[in-house]
Structure formats: structure tokens, C-alpha cells
């Protein structure tokens, strides 16, 4: 990308007024209203009362996604029409960069939680450490390990629960961490690591391809990347099924289940998003003939996102599965 000079500056494109923002807002607000209503029906609701929460949610979501689709379409059309100055392109780059940074901070909150729970809270609940010295009075017999063998509540028994109304938690039967060496080939996270790391390589090869102007190479390797993304998601789904059905690990399994599913779940969601983004780029390239050696920002942004998702996985693999 060329740097800004005063000659490029004079042609600044101020978009015409646009309905996109309002439509996106309506879709977004409807979908959160619907989603919140669905959850409230689930937890507080009366099943005999019919509810239109799902209708509102799906309607809103459809509207929202459709608007976003239209939004990107408009942006792409403008670019192809040559309306975008170098400066605007740089604004898009900055926008994408800081958006990814905000995503990093979102994961930071959950990794911070994992760290805090494993390193501090667990031992405290088991009566260790300066802040936990007296906690054995509440959780008599609770021993901490990671993953925890029991929840504190199980350790003292439901009937004598020291805290009112906390819900009830059960612990998992098996941990998701690496088990016996002889079973390494059954261990899905390892395969997923390999899959995702290679997908970062393939997307890079695709990038090299487009930089060379080699569309064939680009399409091929991008398609492989998308495929790897789909395989990753499939394996992840298989693993979740195993966790729920075979290992008894659920969202209700105390803090281990909570952190496990939240971290891997949000990661999986981001993989799905990234995969969709790459898929769209692929379709653009195949169907629309988009992208040239020096104009392929849509792909580039998606590939940055993909690398980001990959890096998050490396941390996940390390802190959730290995350590």
C-alpha cells in the first residue's frame, strides 16, 4: 500500500447518504431483543405461554445479516468502480487492524479468567494461600487440582450447601487434556492444531499466489484453506459431542466446563466467522473474478483474521489442553 502524499489527498470520497446504518441498527436491535426474550423464556418463562421471541430473533438476524451483506457489497462495488482513494484504503486497513485488536482483548478477558481461576481461586477454595486460609470451614474436604476432580459443592454434598441457591454443579468424568500417550492419535485437539496451523500456511500460499497475479494458485489454496476450516469445525463438533456424551463434561460441570466451553466455543465461533469470510472471498474470486495482484483487500483482511484465529488456538491448545 502506498503512503499518503499530498497529491493523492485531493480526491477524497465522501459517500452519499446511506440507509445501511439504519437498517443494520434495526436488525441488530431486533435480534438482541429476540435473543434476550428467548433466554428469559428459557429460564423464567411459563411454557404454556406462547412466545414470539424466536420469530423476532430470526427476523432481526436475517435483516441484520442481509444488511451487512449489502454493506460489504456496496463497499466492494465502490472499490471496483475506482472510487476508493489510497487514503480510504488505508483507513480500511486501520479499521481491520484495530477491530482484530479488540477481538484480542475479548479473548484476553477469558484467558485472564482461566488464569485467575486456576492459579488463585482454586487453591483458595481448597484452603490454601493467604486469601484462602479459612475456606476449609466452608468446603471441608475439597481438594484442588486442574481439572478439578469435584466441584466444591460436590465435596461438601448438596444437602449441606453453604451457599444458598447456587444451582447445582457436577464435575466431569474425564478431562479434555492430553491423556495417555498410547491414545495420542485419538486425541482430537492435536489434529485440530495441525489442521489449523496448516490452514494458516495454505492461506499464506494463496496470498503469495495473488501477489504473483496467479489466480489459479490463489483459488486453489484458498479453497483448501476453507476446507481445512470446515474440517476443523467438524472435528471440534465431534469433540464437543464426546465431551458431553462420553466424558460428562457440560456447561454445568463447574468452572472447568465453564472455561473449557467458553474459550473453545468462542474460538470455534470465530473460526466459523473467519471461514465464512474466506469462503466469500473465494466466491468473489471464482464468480466475480475479483482481486488483482495489487487490489485484494477483502482477501487480505480475511486472512489477517484467519491468522488471528490461529494464534488464539495456539494459546488455547497450550493453556486449555496441554498445561
Amino acid at each position, binding site marked *: 500500500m502506498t503512503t499518503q502524499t499530498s497529491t493523492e489527498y485531493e480526491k477524497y470520497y465522501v459517500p452519499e447518504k446511506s440507509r445501511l446504518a439504519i437498517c443494520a441498527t434495526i436488525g441488530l436491535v431486533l435480534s438482541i431483543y429476540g435473543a434476550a426474550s428467548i433466554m428469559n423464556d428459557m429460564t423464567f418463562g411459563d411454557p404454556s405461554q406462547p412466545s414470539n421471541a424466536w420469530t423476532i430473533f430470526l427476523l432481526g438476524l436475517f435483516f441484520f445479516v442481509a444488511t451487512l451483506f449489502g454493506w460489504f457489497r456496496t463497499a466492494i462495488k465502490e472499490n471496483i468502480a475506482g472510487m476508493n482513494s489510497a487514503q480510504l484504503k488505508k483507513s480500511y486497513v486501520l479499521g481491520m487492524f484495530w477491530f482484530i485488536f479488540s477481538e484480542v482483548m475479548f479473548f484476553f478477558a477469558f484467558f485472564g479468567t482461566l488464569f485467575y481461576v486456576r492459579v488463585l481461586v482454586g487453591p483458595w477454595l481448597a484452603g490454601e494461600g493467604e486469601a484462602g486460609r479459612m475456606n476449609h470451614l466452608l468446603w471441608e474436604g475439597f481438594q484442588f487440582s486442574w481439572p478439578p476432580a469435584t466441584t466444591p459443592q460436590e465435596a461438601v454434598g448438596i444437602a449441606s450447601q453453604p451457599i444458598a*441457591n447456587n444451582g447445582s454443579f457436577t464435575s466431569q468424568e474425564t478431562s479434555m487434556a492430553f491423556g495417555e500417550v498410547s491414545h495420542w492419535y485419538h486425541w482430537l485437539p492435536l489434529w485440530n492444531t495441525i489442521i489449523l496451523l496448516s490452514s494458516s500456511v495454505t492461506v499464506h500460499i494463496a496470498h503469495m499466489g495473488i501477489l504473483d497475479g496467479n489466480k489459479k494458485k490463489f483459488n486453489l489454496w484458498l479453497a483448501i484453506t476453507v476446507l481445512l476450516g470446515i474440517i476443523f469445525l467438524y472435528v471440534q463438533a465431534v469433540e464437543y459431542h464426546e465431551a458431553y456424551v462420553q466424558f460428562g463434561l457440560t456447561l454445568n460441570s463447574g468452572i472447568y466446563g465453564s472455561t473449557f466451553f467458553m474459550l473453545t466455543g468462542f474460538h470455534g465461533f470465530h473460526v466459523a466467522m473467519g471461514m465464512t469470510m474466506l469462503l466469500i472471498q473465494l466466491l468473489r474470486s471464482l464468480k466475480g473474478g475479483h482481486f488483482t495482484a495489487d487490489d485484494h483487500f477483502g482477501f487480505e483482511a480475511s486472512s489477517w483474521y484467519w491468522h488471528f484465529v490461529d494464534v488464539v488456538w495456539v494459546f488455547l491448545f497450550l493453556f486449555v489442553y496441554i498445561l
Partner: protein
Amino acid sequence: MSFEAKRLWKLALGPVLILMSAAVVGAEVNQVNMSQGATEVGRDIYNLHMLILGICTVIGIGVFGVMFYSIIYHRKSKGVTPATFHESTKVEIAWTVVPFLILISMAVPATSTLLDIYDYEDAEMDIMITGYQWKWKYEYLNENGENVSFFSNLRTPQSEIYNTEDKGQHYLLEVDEPVVIPVDTKVRLLVTANDVIHSWWVPELAVKKDAIPGFINEAWTRASETGIYRGQCAELCGKDHGFMPIVVNVVSRDEYNDWLGAKQAEAAEIKALMAQTFTMDELMERGEAVYQRACLACHGAKGEGGLGKAIAGSPLATGELGAHLDVGINGVPGTAMQAFGGQMNDVDMAAVITYQRNAFGNNMGDMVQPIDVFNYKKG
């Protein structure tokens, strides 16, 4: 001074005068500063507070002094021409370094006081304090023999709160049963909560510690004077957060021992009752009282329900006894229905369950005895 300057001054004087007179008048009727309290730590904190306040006041006078000097003498209406200087590395370094040094001089006494507060060793006795929505439970931990434990509720009547009666002297700061501790004794407080976060705060004992459900925090105090000290819950804990006061009665050691003896005797009495078998009438009478005290707020005077489900005709209260007992003892997780098993003794639990099964038109005719509750809890 120009006309405008004078006007400005007069205007500026207004709020200052209001505040000053507020402070002076206030000082006669009301307390305006932190109290030194009845403990050594409290006095340390007070001194620290005054030290920092003093330093800040001096800095403030300096900064505002310079500013007001400019405001008075460097105004355009005096015909000054503005200077043009806009930086000076020396000055800027000075006013970075000097505040830093001042901060260090604050940090030193602060650190030593903090380490004092955190020194829980050598306590002579332990009291476990548990916050409930919206009352406190005190438990005197005792290695040999029975623990003494009781709840401490707000005593101020609704009529005072809703202004239909004159407010008493200790309005909102009075409880049915104060916690009693001996003077000149290092008492360790083990603070926890049963539902949401509360915070146990008695300013004059210089203790504020959050009560976190599922965790026990330590704090300690050593009162050097006898007397009654009052405080309040200091962490938003729901509707009646403003109505869960704390009263600590600091007494001589002898008085304390007498009091403790009496409480232990009382506990023994309840224990004796627990072995007893009651008649239906006895249970119903006691149960009605317990219901009104503990359940009515949510389940209504006629068992019609409210925040809680209706008891009248409830499938549980008219169904199998075990399930009913279970709800009373263990509550319903995830709802406002608390686990009352830990909050009331077995006699009261037996009575209230019996009452619920036989009042409000629920004519089950069956009874629960204390021993049943005891056995149920045992599993």
C-alpha cells in the same frame, strides 16, 4: 480592582461562605470528619487520613493560590500584554519529581498501617460473621463445646420507617440482638456470606470487610473502650441493603463471660427441645410464629404466594412430606427460595413445615418432629 473583578469576587465569595457556614453549623449537630474510633488501628487510619488531607490541602492552597493570583493580576482588563513562554524543562522536571517524593512520604505510613490491618495472628477468639439477605448471623467458634450462634435483624419498626411514628434515637441502627465482644481482646472476624456479597462495616472498630459467598475473609479488631458501636452493611446486596445494621456491644470480660454462659444455656435448651416430641397444637402454634417471621414476606399471610409460590394448595405442601421438607431445608437452587436448613433450628423447621401442611386449607393432618428434620439433614 475593576468593577468586574469586584463583582467576580463577590460572586465567588458566595459559595465559599455557604460552605463555611455549612461546615460550622454542621459541626455542632453533625459529625464532619472520620471518627478516631475505639481501636488503635482506627487511630492510625485517622492520623493517616488527616496527614494526606493536610498535604493535599497545602498543595491545593499553593496551586489555587498561583491560579487566583493570575486571575486577579494577569487579566486583560488590567491592560497586560500576555507573555509568550510555553515550556521549561527544568520546571517540568521539578513538578514531576517533587510530587513523586511527596507520594513516597505518604506511602510509608500507609504501608505500615496496612500491614497492621493484615496481621491476623494471635487472635484470642474467632467470630464467624455470615451475611444473609438482609440480616447478619454471628457464630462464636469454640473448640470445646457448643458454638453459640444467632441472627441479628433490624429492629426499627416499619411505622418509623414509613413516618407514621416518630423516629427513635438509633433509627435504622438498632438490632434485635447485638453481637457482644470483650474489651481489650483481639477478636478475629471470619466474614462470609450466604447469598450475595455484603460488607461488614463498623466505622469505630475500623473494620470493613466484604462478605463473599463461598469465601471466608479475615479481619480483626481490638476495642480499647467498652460501649455500643453501630455500623451498616456497606455493599449493595439487594432491596433491603439499607436495612441491615450492625450493633456491636463491647463489654468487660466478666460481662462477656456471663453473656456467653447464658447463650450457651439457651442453646442447650433448644437442644433439649430437639429431642422432644411435640403435639400437633404445639407445632402449629410455634409454626405460625416461625412462618410469620421467616416465610410470610414471600409467601403471603394466607399462603397465597407473592415473590414465592403459593403454599395454599401447593403440590409440595399437599404432597409427599420428604419433598416438602427438602425445599424447606435446601431451598430451590437458582431462586429466591433459600436453604433455610442452615438458618433455623430443627424445632422451628419441623414446626413451620407442619404449619404449612395444615394451614391455609392444606389439611394434610401429618406432622414433622424435630428428629425427622435432624435425620433428613443427616441424609
